[in-house]
């Protein structure tokens, strides 16, 4: 295939990778701080998409403002969820916390998905895009809204990395991720950090949904496939590792595109597209559970 076409594939892979990274980062932060895998992450992504749709579409606010609104809404929702459902785990009110976390986030996923299905119906909606038209990068042509969404996503990721490295809140989050007890002993309010982490994680998922909504459409089951991608990315990079998630996302974006291109039978190759990441996930979990960049934690 020509270099231009290959270049476009790589660029598309990068764009998709940026989306995956945004969706996955929230998951990573939640796992890092609260030590749980949030099985409702896909639905939070979806609620973000709907929030953007309602604010930008129905209420008519400018897209960037709608994006911020979606972010804030999901932040608040995430904090509420943590306070109501997750916090009891860390307060000894739940008998088997690990089991509980898995099942209650799964239950939350069921609730959110069907709630949105009930309120909005199964039909797809197209919220206003951030930028229309095609963009030319040298010889490569790429759709403008995707590029804009990916760029904004990248900006958000950069902001997040800055937040985690340079601000007090970010350092508190990293401290609690490394050792909750010690962080508490040195005066960090670990419960507040937990709530902030779930809020932030949800907000990132929601932002991803808001950014991808105009590109891939908004509908109640829109989160089901992306969340699986998010799991793959997070496991690839190592649960809890932010740089790992970013690298894993870029890797997955390329693997999916290239695998589709390299496999001869095109219709089957496309049909299996979503499976490549899953196979990767299984391989990583079975062979190197700490991911490509994570640390080896004690098993169990």
């Amino acid at each position, binding site marked *: 295939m020509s270099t231009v076409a290959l270049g476009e594939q790589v660029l598309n892979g990068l764009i998709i990778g940026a989306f995956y990274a945004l969706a996955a980062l929230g998951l990573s932060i939640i796992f890092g701080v609260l030590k749980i895998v949030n099985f409702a992450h896909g639905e939070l992504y979806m609620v973000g998409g709907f929030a953007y749709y309602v604010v930008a579409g129905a209420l008519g606010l400018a897209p960037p403002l709608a994006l911020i609104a979606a972010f804030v809404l999901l932040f608040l929702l995430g904090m509420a969820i943590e306070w109501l459902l997750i916090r009891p785990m860390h307060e000894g009110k739940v008998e088997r916390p690990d089991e509980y976390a898995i099942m209650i986030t*799964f239950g939350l996923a*069921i609730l959110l998905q069907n709630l949105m299905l009930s309120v909005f119906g199964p039909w797809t909606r197209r919220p206003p895009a951030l930028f229309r038209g095609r963009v030319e990068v040298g010889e490569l042509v790429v759709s403008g809204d995707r590029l804009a969404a990916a760029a904004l996503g990248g900006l958000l990721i950069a902001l997040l990395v800055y937040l985690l490295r340079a601000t007090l809140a970010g350092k508190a989050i990293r401290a609690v991720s490394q050792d909750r007890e010690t962080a508490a002993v040195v005066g960090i309010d670990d419960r507040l950090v937990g709530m902030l982490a779930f809020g932030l994680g949800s907000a990132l998922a929601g932002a991803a949904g808001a950014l991808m909504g105009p590109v891939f459409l908004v509908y109640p089951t829109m989160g089901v496939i992306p969340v699986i991608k998010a799991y793959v990315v997070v496991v690839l990079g190592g649960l809890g590792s932010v740089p790992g998630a970013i690298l894993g996302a870029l890797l997955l974006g390329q693997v999916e595109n290239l695998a589709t291109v390299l496999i001869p039978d095109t219709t089957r190759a496309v049909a299996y597209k979503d*499976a490549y990441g899953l196979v990767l996930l299984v391989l990583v979990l079975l062979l190197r559970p700490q991911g490509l960049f994570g640390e080896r934690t004690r098993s169990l």
Partner: protein
Amino acid sequence: MRRHRAALAGAFLLVVLLVLPLAGLGAYWTYILAIGFYYAILSSSWSLLVGYVGRISFAHAAFAGLGAYTSALASTGLGWPIALTIPLGVVVAALVGLVIGRLCLDLHGAYLGLTTIAFSEILRIAITAEYDVTRGSLGLAAPLLFTGDSRLPHYYTLLAALLAALGLMWLVLRSRIGLFFNAIREDEEAAASVGVRVARWKLVAFTLSSALAGLAGGLYAHVLQLVAPSMMSIGEMGFILSMAVIGGFHNIFYAALGGILLEVVLEALRQIGEWRLTLFGLVVIVILRYSPNGVFGTLARGLGLERGPR
């Protein structure tokens, strides 16, 4: 005395279920209850894994699908009699369960959950993609289990299968194997240190529960006359989880009742549309948070039917 009370309650329920279709339940509700029995096999076999051994798998619906597709393909494609293809479905589901269970031996908690989701989705995608064999999302037609107009044979077959499944699981669980399952759930290392062959029993549990899921799926295929990849979806897994949790996932009988109850409620509330499932999600969350014994667990306690240190 308490043991007798529980057995009596169970016997009463059984009699009710046996007599209902003959006492004028009507074809529609007979059919719904039969589907309820399908879900009851799934939710109770899932609860075996989750409640007794402490391992949460999200691949359960996929095993039902494996049983269903195997039976459907063998009966339509190969022309084999259903009496042969359903057991074949069980065997396939059991073998795949053995392999996946073996691979996942060292995984726990969310890692196990993620891996089983991945396996489930890989199977579903593969079945959808191999259009030439499986007709993809359109689904595959399967011959009816019993020809003729009456739903009664299907009802009683599924009920018999449910009773057989519950009976088999109960026999295993009340034996020392059940004790080993519980020990593994409580503390794997301690169990190993006192001589429990943890790997072996985890495999037995996983294989048994997958086999039963395969049985349910196989029967379902020939009652519904259609198998589609959607029966292996994460949404279906959500149903199974909800039914087990709402019924009471620490006990195979409560989980089974949860399956029947929820299927009935799902149908009864048909008018409110998707809100039914929203309600289920909410109830699941509330029960997990405040009443983990589930509806029937709490009921049984209230009626003094339970014994043992719970």
